């Protein structure tokens, strides 16, 4: 497989990025220091090239019916144009094919899916779409830049089309719209993956480098995938392929809140399996772990819960905001949110606290 590059590849090299292969894409892991980049997003404004993620438009007379069947969350909740919904897309066995965001637009729906899963997602959606009057348009010609941090929106407003400024400032959290004619490709949403306020902007590939340069000129720092991972982990957000995948139920991955059980008559893919799982009693659940002492919790480490059983860390890191390690783990459902559990850290059994996530929101520690 050849490695793909985004329209911002040259911009990354010009900013001294260290490039790595991520899901078949050559992407910046950092531009010098991951810790500094993390700090910038928590205190000011940083930008991420997320053009490797895949944008799809879903149109047709049965677009809504199709998505109500396809997704575990219910697009019926999108009561007004621009609203966004986070959802899992499940197998009939009730495991996670991908997690995604879908927006209600004036022409239908816009969806953003993960880079590493895009091909299988599209194949799955096309298969499911066969019985619906619906068309899927893969918008590979679009780039995407996420600008995140307490000063992100104010700084972006200095460089966007001045006629758009009021509308950008008026965006609600989890809302996004096309800006200008849809065919031009600009779409601005107040969404993100950091636990900070900010925007995700889709735009034509051939305008991406110039826009990136304009964002740089108003003091928005480029941020690599390394900091993206520590930011999302502090925010308690799942990463596909780590915290959940096609072997894991959303009920065991902290995604129970994304399943729309009502109305009971809505049939969606995976519903029957999830209902059976729930009736039998869900065996596993997701918790946050905190290690206030030395050492770093890592993915794959075993979590021992006294008198209950064993779990596993699905994502772990050093938290740059908290200055100690935090992790997301999948543990037996009987584990209490106040338990102390033990993790084998390089041969030493270490006490670790179970907490309710997230760890950090809007720059501040939020767990007890």
């Amino acid at each position, binding site marked *: 497989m050849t490695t793909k590059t985004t329209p911002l590849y040259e911009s990354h090299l010009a900013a001294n990025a260290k490039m790595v292969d991520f899901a078949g894409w050559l992407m910046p*892991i950092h531009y010098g*220091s991951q*810790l500094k980049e993390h700090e910038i997003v928590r205190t000011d404004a940083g930008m991420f090239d997320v053009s490797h993620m895949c944008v799809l438009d879903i149109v047709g007379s049965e677009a809504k019916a199709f998505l109500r069947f396809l997704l575990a969350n219910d697009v019926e909740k999108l009561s007004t144009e621009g609203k966004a919904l986070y959802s899992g897309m499940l197998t009939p066995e009730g495991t996670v094919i991908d997690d995604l965001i879908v927006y209600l637009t004036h022409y239908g729906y816009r969806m953003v899916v993960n880079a590493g899963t895009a091909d299988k997602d599209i194949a799955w959606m096309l298969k499911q779409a066969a019985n619906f009057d619906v068309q899927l348009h893969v918008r590979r010609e679009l780039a995407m830049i996420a600008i995140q941090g307490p000063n992100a929106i104010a700084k972006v407003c200095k460089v966007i089309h001045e006629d758009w400024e009021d509308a950008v400032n008026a965006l609600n959290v989890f809302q996004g719209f096309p800006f200008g004619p849809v065919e031009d490709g600009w779409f601005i949403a107040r969404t993100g993956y950091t636990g900070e306020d900010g925007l995700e902007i889709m735009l034509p590939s051939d305008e991406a480098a110039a826009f990136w340069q304009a964002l740089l000129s108003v003091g928005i720092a480029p941020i690599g995938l*390394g900091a993206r991972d*520590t930011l999302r982990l502090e925010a308690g957000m799942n990463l596909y392929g780590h915290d959940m995948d096609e072997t894991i139920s959303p009920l065991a991955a902290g995604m129970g809140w994304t399943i729309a059980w009502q109305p009971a008559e809505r049939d969606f893919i995976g519903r029957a399996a999830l209902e059976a799982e729930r009736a039998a009693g869900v065996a596993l659940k997701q918790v946050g772990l905190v290690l206030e002492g030395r050492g770093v919790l*890592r993915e794959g480490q075993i979590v021992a819960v006294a008198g209950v059983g064993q779990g596993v860390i699905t994502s772990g890191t*050093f938290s*740059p905001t908290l200055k100690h390690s935090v992790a997301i783990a999948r543990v037996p459902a009987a584990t209490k949110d106040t338990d102390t559990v033990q993790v084998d850290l390089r041969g030493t059994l270490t006490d670790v606290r179970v907490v309710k996530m997230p760890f950090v929101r809007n720059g501040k520690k939020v767990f007890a």
Partner: protein
Amino acid sequence: MSHIPAELKYVNSHEWLRLEADGTVTIGITDHAQELLGDIVFVELPQVGDELAADATAGVVESVKAASDVYAPIAGEVVAVNEALVDAPELANTEPYGAAWFFRVKPADASVLDGLMTAEQYAKEIGV
């Protein structure tokens, strides 16, 4: 591009060694090692008085990305450790050959240094 001071000795587990005037040997990790690890957040050092065998685990360096053992490149008794590095592990990123030395040993046999890699050989080893 990694910095590789000419006056030091090196081993392929990416530690550097410096023979001091008093016959002790100072040991740290190379610039190349810190580049591979990324931002370093914890360092564990041996204790003064530890008798280390050659290639024995002498400590741990942990970055945001990964944990990695630090080895004793030569046998000897630990005579000093850099406590300042434990308090400011990020020094290993910024001053790998200076303020971020890890520990110092009194070598069991100082002549083994002669058999270790020169800067030129280490540069070739890591492909720079």
